[in-house]
């Protein structure tokens, strides 16, 4: 894919859309959660752009994956940390790439084990097609139509860079 994706431009545009969405829903003090690893980088940037007051939460969904018995553990990923009370909280869930939807399914399950949120807004930098579950992002940086042999990868944390790779 020839087009270059300036991640900072995407983030600025997403922050604007998110501000509008929060205002329309009258949400003043949301809790933001990024999914390890790429989602945390995107969340850090958005958290900064929106001047959110509550500290950023991070989620490691390893223990909630549905392919655990096929691929095993990833012990090196940081543990989950939710530094605010999830109960009755409006949550902004952030990931880098929305693909099959399985990661988001796992993340929602984990969030509900911490408490019952008032609402969850899903924000992803890239939506790439290939959905296997009925899960849609509320705000997306960009939509890419990729083949099954193509992979989109976010590298970071500084600078954030999107690359598309082809596998044989």
């Amino acid at each position: 894919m020839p087009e270059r994706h300036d991640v900072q431009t995407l983030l600025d545009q997403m922050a604007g859309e998110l501000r509008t969405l929060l205002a329309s829903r009258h949400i003043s003090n949301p809790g933001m959660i990024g999914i390890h690893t790429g989602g945390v980088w995107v969340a850090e940037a958005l958290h900064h752009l929106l001047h959110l007051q509550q500290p950023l939460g991070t989620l490691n969904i390893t223990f909630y994956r549905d392919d655990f018995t096929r691929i095993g553990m990833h012990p090196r990923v940081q543990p989950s940390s939710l530094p605010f009370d999830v109960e009755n909280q409006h949550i902004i869930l952030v990931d880098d790439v929305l693909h099959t939807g399985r990661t988001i399914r796992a993340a929602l399950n984990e969030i509900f084990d911490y408490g019952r949120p008032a609402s969850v807004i899903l924000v992803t930098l890239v939506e790439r097609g290939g959905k296997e579950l009925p899960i849609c992002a509320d705000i997306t940086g960009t939509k890419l139509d990729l083949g099954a042999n193509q992979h989109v990868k976010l590298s970071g944390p500084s600078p954030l860079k999107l690359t598309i790779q082809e596998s044989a």
Partner: protein
Amino acid sequence: MSTRQIQLDSGGQLHHFISIEGLSREILTDILDTAENFATVGTRQVKKVPLLRGKTIVNLFFEPSTRTRTTFELAAKRLSADVLNLNISTSATSKGESLLDMLHNLEAMHCDMFVVRHNQSGAAHFIAEHVAPHISVINAGDGSHAHPTQAMLDMFTIRRHKPDFTSLRVAIIGDIKHSRVARSQIHALNILGVPEVRVIGPQTLIPPEASHLGVHIYHSLEAGLQDVDVVLTLRLQRERMEGALLPSEAEFFARFGLTEAKLKLAKPDAIVMHPGPINRGVEIDSAVADGPQSVILEQVTNGIAVRMAVMSMVLGRPPQSGEESR
């Protein structure tokens, strides 16, 4: 087949957890890192993750245990597995059923893991050799041979207080001869790169082979405690002693009991550990066991996270060819 070979599958992943001996530093570090992830689960509103949902884990305890069995049971439940507790001394073996017949019956019930505690050294290894290939076996203590999950929870507790294993001086005090905990601790400390491991005890309670394990032997508590970072005390195992290895518990306490005064010889920030159950006033004074340097109750809490890590690692490996058919 050696324990090392039986513990790992053809891809080098942990399949059984029988002994620390022969495992790599990478695997031990993976266990500690995975346990770090599980440590937060116990503090959440829902103290459970769905990782082992649908798996059946059998606690096969041929020897009484409260703490180990309870923490294995809690670990399995926090992973959403179904748990069966079998107290064998009062069960089938009294009707004359052989151990292998009992194992094959449990296999026929489609169990996925056996957690084995036995008073005979080598029992867990024997069971691992004879179970169907899809079943994992975890050693929860066999005779005076090994207690690998206890050693790993001790390593986890040490790492939380002293993150760099390669700069530590660690002393293990007491009944080394009968202690499977001490054996597993020594192997784990060596593999993780602790440069100086000391064992301290009377001549009768230090086995002759200790010198081959790369440890420094002390028969004086005062000398052995000098400048250590970590003090590992052990339970005096009266039930495993034959003959007169000890004059009396009072004399043992006088020479090798850890008191506040003796602990002052260690580094000021040294931590004190004990695998439990504690004989207060025999191997450790209450003032030390309940004192500011004691991390004994942290060990119990950490035991759950470490056992969750080991259970999920042995059941989470990708299936090997030929295993699925069973």
